[in-house]
């Protein structure tokens, strides 16, 4: 369990930084594009094969696992896309696509001559698959007959599951109780298996309503309700 899993409600932080741009540096666009292409070319997707050399799985969950796996002080030291650049370069090195030496040498070349052109070429099927992935998406919804344990209006308690690197459970909700607002139809899988944390196989997803005054007694604002979408593995019957 990491500080980055417990962000909701942290006290003593400064003012908000209202930066409405998506990218604050041109280079950030390039790493976003590479990440999106990796998701699109990942072989588990039901899309036509292409001549891309990409043969290992890469999903959102892999990016998040890397970021959440960081030392918390590093997590907050790096800007959003700096974490992406570190995680994605590391992935290509660890999986043998490139070597660290190659990357360092090429980085030095582009540092010396930022205008040096990129190599040209590549099979157009790769780009067609990327466009098709963006247009079609990758729904985690699965058509399996799993009945939900809870109905709308039921009170549920959030479990305190043992989480290692990656979770989809906001830490500030652990051990708190709320009321099921919506039972989403069907079952939802997740992009990876979070192990003892409990998410991976298809399961119901609930929207659960919490009163802010119950989450942070005496230390929140009046008339605030918080709704969280939670996988079934994260909720249980209240014990009392």
């Amino acid at each position, binding site marked *: 369990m990491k500080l980055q899993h417990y962000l909701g*409600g942290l006290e003593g932080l400064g003012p908000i930084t209202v930066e409405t741009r998506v990218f604050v*540096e041109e280079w950030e666009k390039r790493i976003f594009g590479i990440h999106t*292409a990796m998701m699109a070319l990942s072989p588990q997707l039901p899309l036509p094969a292409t001549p891309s050399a990409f043969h290992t799985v890469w999903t959102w969950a892999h990016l998040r696992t890397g970021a959440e796996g960081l030392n918390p002080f590093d997590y907050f030291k790096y800007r959003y896309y700096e974490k992406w650049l570190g995680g994605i370069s590391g992935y290509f090195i660890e999986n043998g696509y490139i070597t660290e030496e190659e*990357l360092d040498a090429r980085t030095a070349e582009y540092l010396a001559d930022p205008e040096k052109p990129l190599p*040209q070429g590549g099979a157009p099927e790769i780009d067609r698959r990327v466009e098709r992935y*963006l247009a079609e*998406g990758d729904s985690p919804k699965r058509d399996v007959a799993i009945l939900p344990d809870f109905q709308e209006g039921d009170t549920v308690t959030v479990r305190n599951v043992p989480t290692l690197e990656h979770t989809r459970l906001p830490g500030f909700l652990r051990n708190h109780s709320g009321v099921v607002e919506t039972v989403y139809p069907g079952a939802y899988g997740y992009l990876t298996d979070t192990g003892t944390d409990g998410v991976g196989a298809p399961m119901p997803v609930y929207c659960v309503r919490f009163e802010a005054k119950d989450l942070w007694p005496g230390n929140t604002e009046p008339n605030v309700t918080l709704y969280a979408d939670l996988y079934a593995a994260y909720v249980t019957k209240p014990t009392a």
Partner: protein
Amino acid sequence: MTDRFHHPDDREARSAARVRALEALLIEKGVITSKTVDTVLNVFETKMGPFNGARIVARAWVDPAFKQRLVADAPAAIAELTDLPEGMAGAEGEHMRAVANGEGVHNLVICTLCSCYPWPVLGLPPYWYKDPTFRSRAAREPRAVLKEFGLTVPESTEVKVWDSSAQIRWFVIPERPAGTEGMSENQLAALVTPEAMMGVAVAASA
């Protein structure tokens, strides 16, 4: 604004060189093509972006029955708008829900774990949404946060905060500004910002 997004020039130059080196190597190794990154960026300039959300909101303002359907089943209602680009149920838009601001209710969308965001209708999340300070504070003291964005929400108005931590991507239908009765849908769409559709702002006045 703090100086969080300003760093010495060398830090950015190094990151820029490293990502260019990575892109070059991936092209040479046959992972991506020399057009792949631009292909992705082009989708977010022309097909997936806040221009879609603005049109959806404008339609909800002029057609209350459509607004009801949008809140009840966002993907089905969005699919009615056949003049939107393809891909409204595409990446990160597979399961979207809309919540409407109204008398006594203000909605705010957050993601305390990362940056879940409805790409097809809103494009990519702006930096404020990904900022750990926003993600932390908006859960516990949303009114104080909204005030820093320039929006005062009285205590008599319920603030509903939606933390997107599973597979559902949320957006807000802001209230139609006063004095816009004679405006066309295109003119109305121009009043709708990404910030209004995530609940840290309201739609611009006419």
